[in-house]
C-alpha cells in the first residue's frame, strides 16, 4: 500500500506578515518556511501507519507544487521519515492549479491513500484535497481526526457539524485531515537528517491548467481600538460595559 502526503510550504506560524511594494504580494524577506502544520500531522500519521506492519503500508511519498526554493522544507519532511518526494516545478498559482498537478502525479504513480491538510496556513483555502479527489473521481472524507487500516479497509473518524462519526471508505481515497489525526508532529532525528540527504526528490514538469482564481492585493486586518482596563476589584463594571457600551450581552 502506498501513501501520498501533500505538503504545503508556508511561513512559520509566528511570522509577522508584511506586504511587498503595491500590496500585491507578501514580502518574503526574513521569512522562515515550514511544513504546513496539518501536513506535518498527516505525515506523522502516515509514518505511524507505515511503522505498523499490520496496515500493509509500504511507502510514504510527499508531493509538493512549487519552485526549487521549497526543497529545504521537503528535505525536512524526508528527515522526519518520508521515503521520497515529488516536486512539480511550477508556481502554485491557485488551488485548482495545484490540485490538478497533484492529481496528475497520482494518475502516473498510483497511490492508495492520499492525505491533505484541512487548510494551508497561508491561503486558508481548504479546497486542495477535495479538488484532487474530484479530479480523480475517487471518494474523499473531510475533517478527518482519526485514520486506521483494518483488514485492508480504512476506518475514519470525522467531524460533522454538530457531532462526530466513524465511517468506512474503500481505497483509494483522499482524507482531508485536521486536529487529532496524530498527537504530536514527529520530529526529525539526527539519523533521519543524515538519511534525508540522499533520499530522492524527483521533479515533474507541470501539465497545462488555467487557474480559476487570482489574488490581486492584500490588506491588513482592521486595527482594533485600544484596550480599556477595568479594576480587578470591580468586575461588575466589565459586565456594565459589555451590556451598555459594546452591547454584546
Amino acid at each position, binding site marked *: 500500500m502506498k501513501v501520498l502526503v501533500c505538503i504545503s510550504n508556508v*511561513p512559520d*506560524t*509566528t*511570522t*509577522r506578515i508584511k506586504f511587498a511594494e503595491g500590496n500585491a504580494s*507578501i514580502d518574503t524577506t526574513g521569512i522562515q518556511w515550514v511544513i504546513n502544520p*496539518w501536513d506535518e500531522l498527516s505525515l506523522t500519521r502516515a509514518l505511524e501507519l507505515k511503522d505498523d506492519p499490520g496496515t500493509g503500508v509500504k511507502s510514504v511519498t510527499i508531493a509538493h507544487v512549487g519552485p526549487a526554493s521549497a526543497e529545504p522544507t521537503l528535505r525536512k519532511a524526508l528527515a522526519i521519515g518520508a521515503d521520497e518526494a515529488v516536486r512539480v516545478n511550477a508556481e502554485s498559482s491557485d*488551488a*485548482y492549479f495545484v*490540485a490538478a498537478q497533484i492529481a496528475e502525479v497520482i494518475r502516473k504513480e498510483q497511490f492508495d491513500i492520499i492525505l491533505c491538510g*484541512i487548510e494551508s*496556513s*497561508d491561503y*486558508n*483555502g*481548504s*479546497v486542495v484535497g*477535495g*479538488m484532487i*479527489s*474530484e479530479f480523480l473521481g475517487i*471518494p*474523499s472524507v*473531510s*475533517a478527518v*481526526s482519526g485514520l486506521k487500516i483494518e483488514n485492508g479497509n480504512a476506518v475514519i473518524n470525522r467531524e*460533522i*457539524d*454538530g*457531532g462526530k*462519526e*466513524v465511517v*468506512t*471508505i*474503500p481505497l483509494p481515497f483522499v482524507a482531508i485531515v485536521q486536529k*487529532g489525526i496524530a498527537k504530536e508532529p514527529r520530529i526529525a532525528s539526527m539519523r533521519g537528517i543524515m538519511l534525508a540527504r540522499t533520499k530522492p526528490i524527483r521533479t515533474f514538469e507541470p501539465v497545462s491548467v488555467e*487557474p*480559476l*482564481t487570482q*489574488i*490581486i492585493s*492584500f*490588506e*491588513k*486586518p482592521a486595527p*482594533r481600538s485600544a*484596550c*480599556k482596563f*477595568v479594576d*480587578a476589584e470591580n*468586575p*461588575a463594571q*466589565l*459586565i456594565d*460595559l*459589555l*451590556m451598555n457600551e*459594546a452591547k*454584546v*450581552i
Partner: protein
Amino acid sequence: MSVLVYTENWDGKFKKLSYELVSYASGVAKMLNSSVTALSIGKVEEAELKRLGDYGAARILSVDNEILASLDNQTYANVIAEVAGKENASVIIISNNNTGKAVAPRLSVKLKAGVGSGVSRLPLSVNPFTLYKRTYSGNAFAHVIIKSDVKILTIAQNSFDLIETANNAAVEKINVSVDNSQVKTKVQNIQKQTGKILLTDADIVVSGGRGMKSPDNWSTLVELASALGGATACSRPVSDEGWRPHEEHTGQTGKIIAPNLYIAVGISGATQHLAGISSSKYIVAINTDKDAPIFESAQYGIVGDAMKVLPKLVSAVKEFKK
C-alpha cells in the same frame, strides 16, 4: 441566471447560519440583478423551509431522499451540481463549515468553477468578480478575482448580518438522480453533540488557557459561559493536556470562530491562538500579566487572578440579568 444557496439543516431545523447564507446570497443577487434559489437536502417541514424566504430566497427547492441522509462528499457534490445546472446558477453559496469544506472543492472541479473560501464580506465588485477573504490565518485579507463563469463562495460563519426581506417564496419538492451504489462513505457510528451550544454557532464564548492552572478550576468558567448563554472554549495546551475536550480547542490548528464576544481567561495571546479568534467582534482578556500580548487584541481587559475575578463576574452577570 440565479444565485444558488445550499442551506443545511440539523434534524429538520435551520440555524442562524442558514439564514446568514441566504442573507448573503440576497446581497450577491442584488449586485447581479438576479434572484436567490435556496436548496435544502433532507427532511424539513414546509413551514421551516418557507422561513428561508424571510431572508430573500425567491424559490426554495427541497430534496428529500433517504440516500442523502448522511454526508457522502461525492454524492452531495453531484446533487448540488445537478441543481446548479438546472437552475443555471452563476454563483453557488455554501457555508465554510465542515460540510461546505467537504463539498465545495468537488463541486469546483465538477463545474470548473473557482472557489472563494472563508469569505466574510459581500463581493467587492461583480465585474471582475472580486472577493474579500481571510488569508495568513487572519494576519492578512486578500482581494481575489474569480475568473470562471460559475463562482463558488464559502462563507465564514457569524461574519454576515441577517437581512430580513419578506418574500413569500414557494417551496418546490424536486427529485435528483442519485442511487445508493454511488455512496462510498458508510457511517458506522454517530455521536451527536446535543443540548450544548456549538462553539462555532455561539455568539458568546468564554475560553480558558493554561493560566486556569488545573482542570478542577473550570467550574466557574463554565458557570460564566452558561450565565451569559455562551459556549466554552480553550487554548491548545489545555486540550493537549486533556483538561478540556478537543472540540473546544480554538486557534490555528483548532476551531476558527467569530463570536460577538470572546472572553479569554488565562490565555497569553500567542499568534497561533489569535489565528482562531481574531474575527471576534469584541475580545475581553483576563490575565495576571499586564504585558500579556492578548491585551493588544482585546477591547476590554482585567489585570487580575482568574480564580478571584471569575466568581465575581458570575455574580455580576446574574445580578445584571435580573
